């Protein structure tokens, strides 16, 4: 075995880890899409917003400090306390539930029965709104998010594997954060699946996803289910926000991972939770391998920006409903 071969494996492993993070974002999309037929473009911004809120609460920032200072000419910025990570995460989860309620109450209740594409555009509007709102509330500078997740390369794995490929190979380099993210993602998926299979609310959620009117006629409150689903998506966004925020800082580019989640969804199918995971892994591995084998040597690099989309595009031409999606049936 040559060192190149092991580098290839390392690329695949790192791709898998990145794919888990894509899958985390894609999960939030699938949840909302299944229950309400809304394709929520704002999922990425929700991740950004939750991460911003988390950092803001932990550091004791005063919300809208910038705005208040501009209007009243004051100079406030911090409360001067630090909130422990666990409490801050709980508080942020509360904020996300509140947000879910607001979104349902003020936006999508008024858009019931509209065409999917109108709903999609409404979520684009929501994304813009939340982006500006988050920045107004917690200001837009890049922040560090530290909730105590270990970071940096895992020396243990590196030491274990350094003997494999001869002298030129130094062992697999895998970020500890990615490993934690993968474990969290797996736990999250198990919780979500268990929730939707074994609890009363979960069953109601699946009933709504199946048929709105039938669910309504057996006494399930659509409003409640939609708030529940948006809250769940908010939690998933929070987890994704924590992971991505810890990885690359809390900043605007965090919201762009939503765009990366789109091809993941198209590969996996919009309605399938396992599909989101598998799609995420395929995209993660695919783009890293493509960059390693073809992009960097021949095309000048940075192919990660578009590879996922092209992959999804080519894939869709052959299978329009994605890997695990339900077959699209159209009637006149």
């Amino acid at each position, binding site marked *: 075995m040559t060192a190149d071969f092991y580098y290839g494996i390392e690329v695949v492993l790192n791709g898998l880890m990145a794919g888990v993070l894509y899958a985390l974002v894609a999960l939030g999309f699938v949840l909302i899409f299944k229950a309400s037929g809304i394709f929520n473009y704002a999922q990425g911004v929700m991740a950004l917003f939750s991460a911003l809120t988390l950092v803001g609460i932990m550091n004791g920032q005063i919300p809208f400090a910038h705005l208040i200072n501009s209007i009243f000419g004051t100079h406030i910025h911090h409360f001067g306390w630090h909130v422990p990570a666990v409490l801050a995460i709980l508080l942020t989860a509360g904020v996300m539930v509140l947000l879910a309620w607001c979104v349902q109450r003020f936006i999508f209740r008024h858009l019931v029965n509209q065409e999917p594409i109108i709903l999609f*555009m409404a979520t*684009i*509007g929501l994304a813009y*709104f939340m982006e500006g709102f988050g920045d*107004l509330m917690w200001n837009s500078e890049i922040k560090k998010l530290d909730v105590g997740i270990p970071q940096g390369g895992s020396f243990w794995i590196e030491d274990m594997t350094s003997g494999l490929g001869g002298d030129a190979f130094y062992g697999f380099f895998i970020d500890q954060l990615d490993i934690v993210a993968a474990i969290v993602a797996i736990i999250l998926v198990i919780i979500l699946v268990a929730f939707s299979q074994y609890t009363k609310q979960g069953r109601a959620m699946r009933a709504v996803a199946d048929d709105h009117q039938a669910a309504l006629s057996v006494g399930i409150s659509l409003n409640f289910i939609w708030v529940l689903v948006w809250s769940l998506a908010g939690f998933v966004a929070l987890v994704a926000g924590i992971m991505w925020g810890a990885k690359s800082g809390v900043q605007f580019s965090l919201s762009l991972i939503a765009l990366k989640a789109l091809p993941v969804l198209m590969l996996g199918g919009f309605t399938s939770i396992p599909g989101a995971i598998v799609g995420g892994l395929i995209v993660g591995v695919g783009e890293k391998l493509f960059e390693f084998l073809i992009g960097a040597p021949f095309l000048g690099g940075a*192919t990660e920006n578009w590879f996922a*989309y092209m992959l999804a*595009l080519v894939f869709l031409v052959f299978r*329009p409903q994605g890997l695990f999606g339900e077959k699209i049936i159209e009637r*006149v």
Partner: protein
Amino acid sequence: MFYREAGDFKTSYAKDSQTFPIKFDRWRYYLVLAVAFLVIPFIINDYWANAVFLPFLIYAIAAIGLNILTGYAGQVSLGTGGFMAVGAYATYKLTTAFPDINIAIHIFLAGGITAAVVTLFGLPSLRIKGFYLAVATLAAQFFLVWLFNKVSWFYNYSASGQINMPEREVFGVLVTGPNTQAWATYLFCLVFVVFAGVVARNMTRGSLGRRWMSIRDMDIAAEIIGVNPLTAKLSAFAISGFFVGISGALFFSVYLGAVEVGEAFGINKSFLVLFMIIIGGLGSIFGSFAGAAFMVLLPVLLKNVLVGGMGWDTALAAHLEFVIVGALIIIFLIAEPHGLAQLWRVAKEKLRLWPFPH
């Protein structure tokens, strides 16, 4: 009272099928054209040209293009920014390769090249629909921006990776480069806008437009009654691409002069143009103009009021702009999904009867 068709008799087929069948509308249209061509060029200055009129005119062309694709043919595109970049880079390559040919011809050619590229990216629309297609156009957006960044042939191997527009003249008057005069650039863009508006308006009310709309409303039903989805969809992509390409070409050559592709033609540009047609009105040429005007004027207004008037930070004003734009999109979708154009239509209906109740 003022606005009515009583006494406006049509005595020939040509009169019956003209663009503005009501006399009042027609005169209003002539008046707008007269003001645009004969009054504004004499009073325009650099600030008004650069802050308001040039972006408005150029975005109006882009909005017409996207409206044909999204509003009339129902194919959502999130790749407008990338397609505008094609127009810009095509103009740059053409005008540096053939400097003696008139820039106006180059801009039309750039529109043609963009039409070809957009049609290519429109091919998947024959298989996939709705937001699947929207995501496919995102592929175009990211791929094109990457391409213009990485392949140095497109920017003539310049060290900065930027493209810079050389000075070009039309009828002996400079229209591009740093030494232009406000009225010249304004008139140059205006000619293209009028061309785009007239062509688009007549296409969309003809048989081609009807085919697009039938595809939008239900493509399977349209196919059954004899509309060929291949030609209908691809013609929408091509014609939309042509206008978007012209708009990108003007945006680069006349308005900005120097362009870095990721900054000028990024994903935000795609959303901006999409917002224009949502707010202005999907499926309406007037809506494209109204939306472009709205989205160009709103930031200028906010900036003048908040930064100039109240002394706020520019960053803060920018954040507030995001909030307002996002809220407006949602409010429009809830209250008036057909946008400003529909408000205008309703106002016209009211004016027909005013001041009588029935």
